[in-house]
């Protein structure tokens, strides 16, 4: 019974985080903020659901598989987010006008053509 309650709590909270991730993806203002909401809330939600699976099937083989899935997710999620974020910045995807500070500005290798810098584009 106690195990059932733990499983139920893990599943529902995991599902809630997955939903929040989707909501954040639609609601947030620019691609960087969307990544905050989406990548990590989805990873946390999926991790919680997998933990629920591990508790529900009380057998070692299943628990190890659930653990492997969690480890894969936790290792790959930040790498994927990092690659998308770097690509987005280097492609000069504009940032939301509410962005307060950009200390990376000017550190990106200069382009062949004299295009306006990132801050000039985002600060308008």
């Amino acid at each position, binding site marked *: 019974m106690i195990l059932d309650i733990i499983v139920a709590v893990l599943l529902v909270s995991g599902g809630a985080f997955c939903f929040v991730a989707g909501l954040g993806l639609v609601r947030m203002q620019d691609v960087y903020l*969307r990544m905050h909401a989406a990548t990590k809330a989805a990873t946390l*939600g999926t991790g919680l659901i997998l933990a629920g699976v591990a508790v529900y099937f009380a057998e070692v083989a299943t628990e190890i598989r659930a653990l492997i899935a969690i480890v894969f997710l936790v290792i790959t999620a930040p790498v994927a987010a990092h690659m998308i974020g770097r690509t*987005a910045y280097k492609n000069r995807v504009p940032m939301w006008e509410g962005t307060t500070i950009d200390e990376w500005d000017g550190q990106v290798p200069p382009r062949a053509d004299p295009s306006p810098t990132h801050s000039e584009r985002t600060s308008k």
Partner: protein
Amino acid sequence: MIDLGLGLVGWATAVCLVLVILGMALGFVRMLLGPTLPDRVVGLDMLTVLMVAFAAAYAIAVDETAFLDVAIVLALVGFLGTVAFARYADRRAAEDEAAGKTHPTEEHRQ
């Protein structure tokens, strides 16, 4: 509550599956709307992560541990897909720049 013979875990699984599907639908909306390629890649990345979550929750729903293997494979393949897309976007930007074209993301700017 109406008794469907689900029990506590059954209800929790049903709620979880519905929430994950709603999250996937919202992720799909972002993939359709864009407005830039990285936005779509973020949407795709989240969709694959939520597919892992769905496979895991479905394993409980049908009481079949084989779906966990599906979850593991999806987690790995989804990561590869995201990295490939990020590399592609990077490469395309560099090539367009070398060819002197305006950047594709500029056309979509809000």
